[in-house]
């Protein structure tokens, strides 16, 4: 082969300059492995290529793995690009290109296994590549598919790494690889111990990989690094099935097997001496089957006693894939400590979730706290005001394409729209029903179904989007466990703003003073020159307007439908009632209690939000029994109905 090449080189001396730093001669020495690589043999050749230190090697490996290397009829290797019937060839060393007809040229197609080996060899080049993007992608590819042979190149590349961030990532990754594939047990244990404080998903998966285990069954306790011995009586049927699979015991004779065996052996109206008509109980069937088994017509009956005896005769165990007990012990300890930290982080995450849910409930309920709590008016249409606010936001987004401006416009417009709706409703309906609270409830309910159906008629039944601006999308990621979306933070901030605003209006303004005066004693307030009608109207408008703004906020993270108000109305009433009527702080307390409670229950039973809501409502019903006036109960004369 070499002789041919030399002859060829002499002949074509002008077109190929044979120099010491050329790749082609090196390729020709391994021509056969290059042309038809196999996973086993390719390693030697790759080592040679890598050892040569030639700058062309990484490019060649990439092209080779990418099936872009072609071999000419004379055995020379080119980078080639197919173009119809012709082939654009590029010299592996000089980079000269020429176009030839593709006759006689063969494309090299290394198989998947070989490509993986090539990829691994490539990694070390990429890790030291001057282009930081390629270094990063190499590091991430290692992170995705860690393997033992990547450890050495990775460690070697750390010293030369200029970028601080990437360097830190390389060190972290090298640590992960050391934990799994380190040379000595000491090095691995040291790496494993250093993972004990790392709650990232990656670190946990490294530890779990070290701790992978297999279950097995044997007559005596086996050699090896045993994780634990299992008690077969915990799930006897499952363990027995394992025993059967391992071939240590006859198959279980369940009701189906017995039935099949009986059906197969019917003999003139009886089976095993038992008449067919009597076979409608399990006991009779077992008797018949036992008779069949005695005659050798069926496998022996496995009763509970025989099953338990078989189970007792064998040892069921879990065996670590890792042989070194010291390493698995260290990994178990590290994992336990990690899991404890994760549990804390999850608790923190849960608290954040609860906080954001509480702020949503607070936003939904605060308007109600004003109309119901302060004025004593039940407004079942409150949910529909929330819906109106959300639809206002949606309509404004149709006209203003910039989402940021749209939201900023939507908030005051939603307030104005629902304020107007609230004032209209107060003037037309509620004013006449101030002394009949139950009838207010019913009348506002009538308004609620009318408004809901109106929204359905106008906007259709499908959900409308209320898109949040870009700067609100995404999430604030604190760690792999704790994260919270920006929208929820925004809602939290909005809730705080409203709390401050309402408190300010009620406690520090003339309007607030008059509202409180009318609430406490309308007659006295009127004789002091306050117009209770006007105050009631404004208060109701304020409460409704806030519902509109809450609607925009809720619409940002939930879907806008005509039924969205109904989803919040019961919860909102609960929030107000649990918190204590007539008190903004009470509403805050109620929203927090309900928000955190619901998240807490969901955490106990994560698959089932419906159940969480059910239990929460039951809890609230019980809670009302013990504190009928809510968490923050008014005292003295204000508490009188």
């Amino acid at each position, binding site marked *: 082969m070499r002789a041919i090449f030399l002859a060829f080189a002499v002949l074509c001396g002008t077109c190929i300059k044979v120099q010491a730093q050329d790749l082609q001669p090196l390729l020709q020495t391994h021509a056969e492995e290059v042309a038809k690589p196999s996973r086993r043999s390719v390693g030697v050749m790759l080592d040679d290529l890598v050892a040569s230190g030639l700058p062309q090697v990484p490019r060649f490996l990439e092209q080779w793995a990418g099936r872009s290397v072609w071999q000419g009829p004379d055995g020379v290797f080119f980078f080639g690009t197919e173009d119809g019937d012709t082939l654009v060839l590029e010299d592996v060393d000089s980079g000269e290109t020429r176009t030839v007809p593709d006759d006689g040229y063969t494309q090299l197609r290394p198989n998947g296994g070989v490509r993986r080996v090539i990829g691994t060899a490539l990694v070390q080049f990429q890790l030291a590549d001057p282009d930081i993007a390629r270094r990063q992608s190499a590091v991430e590819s290692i992170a995705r598919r860690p393997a033992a042979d990547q450890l050495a190149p990775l460690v070697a590349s750390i010293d030369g790494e200029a970028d601080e961030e990437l360097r830190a990532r390389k060190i972290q990754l090298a640590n992960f690889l050391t934990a799994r594939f380190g040379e000595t047990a000491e090095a691995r244990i040291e790496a494993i111990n250093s993972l004990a404080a790392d709650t990232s998903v990656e670190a946990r998966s490294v530890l779990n990989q070290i701790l992978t285990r297999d279950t097995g069954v044997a007559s005596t306790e086996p050699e090896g690094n045993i994780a634990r011995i299992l008690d077969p009586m915990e799930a006897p049927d499952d363990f027995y099935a394992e025993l059967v699979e391992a071939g240590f015991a006859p198959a279980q004779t369940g*009701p189906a097997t017995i*039935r099949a065996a*009986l*059906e197969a052996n*019917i003999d003139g109206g009886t*089976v095993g001496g038992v008449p*067919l*008509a009597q*076979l*409608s*109980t*399990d006991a009779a*069937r077992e008797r018949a089957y036992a008779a069949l088994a005695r005659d050798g017509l069926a496998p022996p009956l496995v009763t509970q006693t025989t099953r338990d005896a078989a189970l007792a005769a064998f040892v069921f165990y879990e065996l670590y894939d890792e042989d070194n007990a010291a390493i698995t012990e260290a990994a178990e300890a590290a994992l336990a400590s990690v899991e404890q930290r994760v549990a804390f982080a999850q608790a923190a995450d849960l608290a954040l979730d609860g906080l954001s849910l509480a702020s949503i409930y607070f936003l939904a309920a605060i308007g109600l706290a004003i109309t119901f709590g302060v004025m004593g008016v*039940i407004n079942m249409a409150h949910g529909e005001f929330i819906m109106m606010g959300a639809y206002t936001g949606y309509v404004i987004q149709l006209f203003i394409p910039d989402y940021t401006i749209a939201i900023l416009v939507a908030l005051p417009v939603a307030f104005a729209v629902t304020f107007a709706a609230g004032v209209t409703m107060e003037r037309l*309906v509620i004013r*006449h*029903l101030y002394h009949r*609270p*139950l*009838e207010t*409830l*019913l*009348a506002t*309910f*009538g*308004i*609620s*179904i*009318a*408004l*809901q*159906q*109106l929204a*359905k*008629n106008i906007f259709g039944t499908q959900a409308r989007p209320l898109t949040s601006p870009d700067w609100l999308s995404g999430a604030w990621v604190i760690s792999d466990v704790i994260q919270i979306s920006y929208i929820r933070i925004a809602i939290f901030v909005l809730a705080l703003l409203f709390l401050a605003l309402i408190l300010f209006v009620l406690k520090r303004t003339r309007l607030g003073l008059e509202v409180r005066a009318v609430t406490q004693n309308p007659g006295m307030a009127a004789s002091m020159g306050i117009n209770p009608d006007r105050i009631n109207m404004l208060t109701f408008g304020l409460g409704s307007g806030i519902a509109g703004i809450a609607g925009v906020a809720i619409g940002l993270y939930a879907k806008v439908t005509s039924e969205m108000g*109904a989803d919040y109305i*019961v919860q909102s*009433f*609960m929030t107000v*009632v649990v918190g204590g009527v007539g008190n903004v702080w009470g509403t805050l307390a109620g929203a927090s209690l309900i928000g955190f409670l619901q998240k807490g229950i969901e955490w106990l039973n994560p698959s*089932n939000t*419906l*159940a969480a*809501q*059910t239990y929460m*409502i*039951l809890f*609230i*019903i*019980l809670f*009302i*029994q*013990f504190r*009928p006036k809510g968490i923050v109960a008014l005292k003295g004369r204000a508490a009188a*109905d």
Partner: protein
Amino acid sequence: MRQGFLYQNPSVLWFLAALGLFTVSVVMLSEVTGVAVVSTSFVKTLGKTLCLCLVAIAMDVVWGYCGILSLGHFAFFGIGGYAIGMWLMYARTEMIVLGSLEGQVIPPTPQEVSDAIGNQIFGVVGSSEFPLIWAFADSLFLQLLMVVLVPGLLALVFGWLAFRSRVTGVYLSILTQAMTLALSLYLFQNDSGLRGNNGLSGLQNIPGFEATSQAAISVVFFVASAVALGAGYVFFAWVVSGKMGSVIKGIRDNEARVRFLGYHVESYKLFVFTITAVVSGLAGALYYPQAGIINPGEIAPIASIYLAVWVAIGGRGRLYGAVIGAAFVSLLSSWFTGGGAPDIPLGFYTIQWTDWWLVLLGVSFVAVTLFFPKGIGGLFDYLVRKP
């Protein structure tokens, strides 16, 4: 005594006479007698309406007479429906399963039968095990007992808790609504043991009467509903008349005063709340075999509010008002939503009543509350001269 009661309440006789006349004429005109002026499906609609009237009477007693605006009585109605539905579904599935297992050489064991039934019923929610609450589903008697016991006990416990801690007025309304919401949310779950969202279906097929035509079954249920309504009417008219009735109405008008007079208000309220819940459950047990299907959506809080709407439109505080309201609004509602009402072209827009009926209902409800607090029943006051 009974003579005196009927003498004092002539409206009961009037009502019974009207109901009897109505029932007899519907039966005479139904498909069973061959006249077939009233179709089977309309007989079913009328039968269902009678059941709704019964639950409306119960609602009227608890709200119009006792002043407790319960937003949970339709939940009791639904529980009654579920209780009877469980037996109907179990018994019917059992027959089908036994029929299909009959051909087998080896007779099935009870376990195999039960497994097959479970598979049929719960396959739709990905399960085949019988939940604990189906323990009595194989017995009609026990399940009928459930129709009475479950709503009764639930109302008893809930009412005892609520009345004991003096939860009144709108708070009680919200609390009962919360109870209804909790129940419907619970039933919506697939692992509630009652087929989740799918509910119970095929209830119109009465086990043991496969050969009987639906026309005959519908008439039987219609008559049964009418009898139940008549009995319920007489019973509640008796409850709200006499001394106890006065106490109950006193509680509505001024609870504190009645308490100071020495009556144990909580016991009266609890009695009314529980007994109306039981009647609601019975009404549901009669309603759902005629409807054929029950699902958690039927129990949603909105249904209980509609119940209050019917009673308010019909006229609170008079039993015939509740009957009129329930019959009028529910029949009108099915006429409008069923496409029976003609569209109104306005030139630029056509009002389709399927879309606009709820708007009309909502607005007219507000109007009734504001301007006619006595409801439709109040019209009778003009007919009867006050003594």
